[in-house]
């Protein structure tokens, strides 16, 4: 141990001992970063009406409450449906836009790209009240269509950036070769280009699913009536009281997110290997 402390940590002869404060600090930061994400998991299995850690008695009470409640189940169905449809709308829209902007060399490509990533920059409250107003006029307030369109707007920049950067690393001559051999442009895209960027497309799809599933503010304004989303109901419950059912929902959301992200990592990894 002592030897390790005296050994150099960098090329400039700073020892591990001199860096000890940094290691301690970083460990604390890592614990603080992760704790709030994982602490709800054991808490959700408590039998108590009050959230406690560690739980005195274990039970699935709050999970039973969630799955037994028509209101929560309805909200979960709405959230999954919205996230799935958002994925189906945002992914193709974003991919063909990324391809179009990438291969078209008109002067206003850069301006169009900036416009398409603005949903990421504009404060989400503004997007929400703007959509709320527009939906009143279009008569799609509190409908699934409206919710999916607004969520697709948020997901679009994610798909665009991920597939756009994959296209930059793709050799356009491969597609040109296919076309000189007689393939139509759309066919060359589907059979040559798309398979090359498929990992980015899948990552973009997963990100758009999550973007919709986790979204709160827009859902607060444009989802309501008979089909509020899970996050909207959770937010309203949080303002009133600390309901342990939310710990159970949170646990399931953490697991879902982690699973999707591991999936995205696996896709990203195989891209590097192949």
């Amino acid at each position, binding site marked *: 141990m002592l030897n390790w402390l005296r050994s150099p940590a960098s090329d400039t002869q700073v020892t591990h001992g001199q860096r000890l404060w940094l290691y301690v600090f970083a460990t604390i930061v890592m614990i603080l970063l992760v704790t709030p994400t994982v602490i709800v998991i054991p808490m959700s299995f408590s039998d108590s009406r009050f959230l406690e850690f560690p739980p005195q008695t274990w039970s699935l009470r709050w999970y039973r409450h969630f799955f037994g409640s028509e209101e929560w189940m309805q909200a979960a169905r709405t959230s999954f449906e919205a996230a799935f449809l958002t994925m189906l709308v945002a992914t193709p829209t974003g991919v063909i836009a990324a391809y*179009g902007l990438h291969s078209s060399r*008109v002067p206003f490509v850069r301006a169009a790209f900036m416009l398409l990533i603005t949903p990421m920059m504009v404060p989400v409250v503004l997007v929400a009240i703007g959509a709320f107003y527009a939906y009143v006029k279009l008569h799609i307030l509190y409908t699934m269509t409206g919710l999916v369109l607004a969520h697709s707007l948020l997901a679009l920049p994610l798909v665009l950036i991920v597939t756009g950067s994959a296209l930059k690393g793709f050799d356009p001559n491969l597609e040109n070769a296919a076309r000189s051999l007689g393939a139509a442009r759309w066919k060359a895209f589907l059979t040559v280009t798309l398979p090359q960027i498929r990992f980015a497309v899948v990552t973009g799809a997963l990100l758009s699913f999550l973007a919709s599933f986790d979204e709160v503010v827009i859902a607060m304004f444009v989802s309501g009536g008979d089909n509020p989303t899970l996050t909207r109901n959770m937010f309203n419950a*949080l303002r009133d009281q600390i309901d342990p059912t939310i710990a159970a929902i949170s646990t399931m959301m953490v697991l879902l997110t982690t699973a999707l992200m591991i999936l995205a990592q696996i896709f990203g990894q195989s891209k590097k290997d192949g």
Partner: protein
Amino acid sequence: MAAADMSAPDMNAAGLRRDERFERLRLFGLSSPALLLVLVILVLPVGWLFYVSFIGADGSFSLENYARMINRKSYARIFWTTFEVSVLTTGLCVLIGYPFAYFLAQLPQRFANLCLITVLLPFWTSLLVRTYAWLVLLQKNGLINNWAISLGLWDEPVKLVHNLNGTLIGMVHIMLPFLILPTYGAMRAINRDYINAAANLGASPRRAFWTVFLPLSTPGLFAGALMVFVLCLGFFVTPAVLGGGRVIMVSMKIVSNIELFVNWGAASALGVVLLVLTGGLLWIASRFVNLAAATAGGAH
């Protein structure tokens, strides 16, 4: 005959050029569904908000919605709170995030990737889940109060949530990844030979850090800090839950103006100010750093 021969290649060239222009426009047209979506759901409604912000209570053109922000004390306090929370959050994120990114950058790549999971895990997790977790941890009989009392740090439960403290704790936790990721990226890209060269020329490790490493890492730090600041300005969920009504930021006033008072004029004017501030900052920043690259990590 001869004249026709002369002009045929020219005509062909012109035709090809026309075809190419047409082809380019057709390719550009592929982005039209995306552009249409942004136009209908974002640009037009925000444009309408802009218009409404200049309409007074009597329906004619007026600046009363903006005058209200200057005349009323409550609005000044909201802007001050927003500014205060954003500056403090950004400052704390820099103080915590920079040394942490430095720590990651000094580790061997494999080990750093492992530690990076602790940054990415909260980054992916739903904002609402993390806010809820802090609410639980910080409440009066929460984990932190209980532990601190049993360790003897303080005698009776301290109010950690439903105030500025809780808001800041939650927001720093949520914003940290936005600072750490670009800063770490910039640090990884620094060629270690520069530091070694500085050391070779007689600089102490401290001096090599301050005069070589720090300046080379600032573009990443700057991009991250700006991202955090801009996101803080328009933040809603975390301050609304952890602030418990005592920390009122611009975005919350916009929401309450619509939900409680149905005052579109006041809400729109606040929205326009928020948008101009955000857009202005991003515009200034875009001249220094590549924003698309800085945000590519995902901003959900």
